[in-house]
């Protein structure tokens, strides 16, 4: 079987064809050129079977939970809670933005949802408070990558599905890296706030006020406890946990917060179904594409090419991180994982890297890639909610991105950072 599909794929991608169709056309056309059209039926059944998976169903349910929380004003209550906790420090609202992202990350697995929900609220508020709109958009985008690093995480579910690692283990591995990114961003923000004389957001809240907002936010804050507690204790599968989280979010929004009415629900479900369908089709198409990568022997060739450069695994990890940075500039995390995971992971696992460790490095790297120019979904969403040009936001974001790159290198070369919790829980 020839490798023409690879070039067809690159050309289609660069010409602006939808990724999902590029993934289907290139193997189809390549088989046609080679006169092997009898394999076209195999492509179709890969497409169907690639989506036909119970673990993958966590994706629509987490998207649903996120939609409900946005529509139901849960985001607003998280921001209020963050404000009473750290709004009084210098650069208060910027720090509130980061802390809200961390809290939001425990409810949702999507950086785009985080940027759009928090950006709509916090960018105007920060601008009123004396920040440049550019900076407000930059910190929103930079901190929203915490969303898919701290569990739950849509990207990790997809990785776990394609590469057959434990979702629960991967979730557990994301906790510390997510907190590290948060700490790094807060430190940079504190330095910038001092240098640029950013204001505090409010008077320091009294412990009484903090207690009141804490209890108001408690239903939302309990979601990650139910989710992660349930998954890590083995009570639910991740898919069931996601469904429970969605139903819990609906009940809290309808009956406790009373911010959502029954009449709002059809729109929430339809929107969640449409968003997840787009991702599912991409997964199915990528499974189809992965099949031809395997059958044509492409995976071994790439692996051979990479391992031919050096046999030092530390240098190879550096190279693969740089490679993924570049990929992350142009491709979304989901498609990148679906296409490259099956090629790269076996190579490193074969060299003795723990499958879970490689998984977390790849997931965090490509998640940060969501915010890097020129192609970054998070960057575009930040631009559309703020009205600033993506390139202007990207310039402001540079110090934050540097911190995030630094965290990626830390978790690459100190496996204990990400692997300790999964090991304690028996996943690695």
């Amino acid at each position, binding site marked *: 079987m020839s490798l023409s599909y690879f070039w067809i794929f690159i050309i289609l991608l660069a010409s*602006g064809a*939808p990724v999902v169709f590029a993934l289907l056309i290139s193997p189809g056309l390549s088989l046609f050129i080679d006169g092997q059209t009898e394999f076209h039926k195999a492509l179709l059944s890969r497409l169907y079977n690639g989506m036909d998976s119970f673990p993958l169903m966590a994706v629509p349910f987490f998207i649903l939970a996120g939609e409900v929380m946005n529509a139901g004003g849960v985001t607003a209550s998280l921001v209020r809670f963050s404000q009473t906790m750290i709004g009084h420090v210098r650069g208060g609202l910027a720090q509130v933005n980061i802390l809200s992202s961390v809290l939001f990350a425990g409810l949702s697995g999507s950086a785009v949802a985080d940027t759009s929900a928090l950006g709509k609220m916090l960018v105007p508020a920060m601008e009123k408070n004396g920040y440049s709109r550019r900076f407000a958009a930059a910190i929103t985008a930079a901190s929203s990558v915490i969303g898919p690093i701290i569990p739950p995480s849509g990207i990790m579910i997809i990785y776990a599905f394609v590469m057959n690692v434990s979702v629960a283990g991967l979730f557990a591995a994301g906790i510390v890296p997510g907190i590290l990114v948060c700490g790094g961003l807060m430190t940079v923000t504190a330095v910038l706030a001092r240098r640029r004389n950013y204001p505090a957001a409010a008077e320091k809240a009294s412990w009484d006020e903090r207690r009141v907002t804490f209890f108001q936010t408690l239903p939302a804050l309990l979601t990650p406890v139910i989710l992660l507690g349930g998954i890590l204790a083995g009570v639910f599968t991740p898919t069931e946990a996601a469904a429970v989280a969605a139903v819990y979010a609906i009940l809290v929004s309808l009956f406790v917060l009373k911010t959502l009415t029954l009449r709002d629900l059809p729109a929430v479900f*339809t929107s*969640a179904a449409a968003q*997840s369908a787009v991702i599912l*089709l*991409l997964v199915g198409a990528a499974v189809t594409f992965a099949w031809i990568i395997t059958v044509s022997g492409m995976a071994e060739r790439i692996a051979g090419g990479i391992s031919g450069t050096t046999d030092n695994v530390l240098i190879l990890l550096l190279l693969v991180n740089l490679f993924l940075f570049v990929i992350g500039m142009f491709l979304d995390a989901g498609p990148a994982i679906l296409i490259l995971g099956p090629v790269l992971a076996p190579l490193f696992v074969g060299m003795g890297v723990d499958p879970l460790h490689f998984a977390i490095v790849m997931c965090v790297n490509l998640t940060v890639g969501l915010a890097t120019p020129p192609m970054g979904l998070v960057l575009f969403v930040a631009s559309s909610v703020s009205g600033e040009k993506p390139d202007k936001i990207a310039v402001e974001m540079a110090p934050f991105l540097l911190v995030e790159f630094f965290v990626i290198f830390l978790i690459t070369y100190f496996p204990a950072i990400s692997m300790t919790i999964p090991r304690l829980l028996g996943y690695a």
Partner: protein
Amino acid sequence: MRAVKAAGKNRNGNVLEKSLLMVADRLGVVNHAVGVAGRNIAGAFLVFMTVIVMAQVIFRYGLNNSLAWTEELSKTLMVWTAFLVAPWAYREKANVAIELFSDALHPRIRAAGQIIITLLIIWIVSIFLRESVDFVMRGMQSRSASLPISTGYFYLIVPVSFAALLIAAIEQFLRDVVALRAKPE
């Protein structure tokens, strides 16, 4: 004024463009209705999926009775939502694409490239439409693992979705041709 001059210069072209656009608009009405219907049904299916998976949890813990059919039914519903949304997603350009490089091209070249992409989409969708008939037929030979029907019924959505995608892609092709002939602004 400019429109009048253009019309005088290329009357035939304009007639062709108008009729292409008219056909595209007719198809568009159908495609829009089909797309929105698919998306709404997918929303309803997500409700069923949620209910089924919750039932699975409740039966296992509350009633100590694991249901055998919930996984298969709910994941089939999920595959259906994907295929139901596909025509809408294509038409609304909701699929991810890298437009950075094509945006840098001359509008004419970009429009020509767009036509090639749409033709390739029409080609692959036709192949999948043809293969899906066979896919359903083969499915009719095997029984579902947990439900008393053939798996072929699960696959019925596949030809329906590709047929709808094909019509949407033909509409897109007509619009691409008109765009190629249009004077760049």
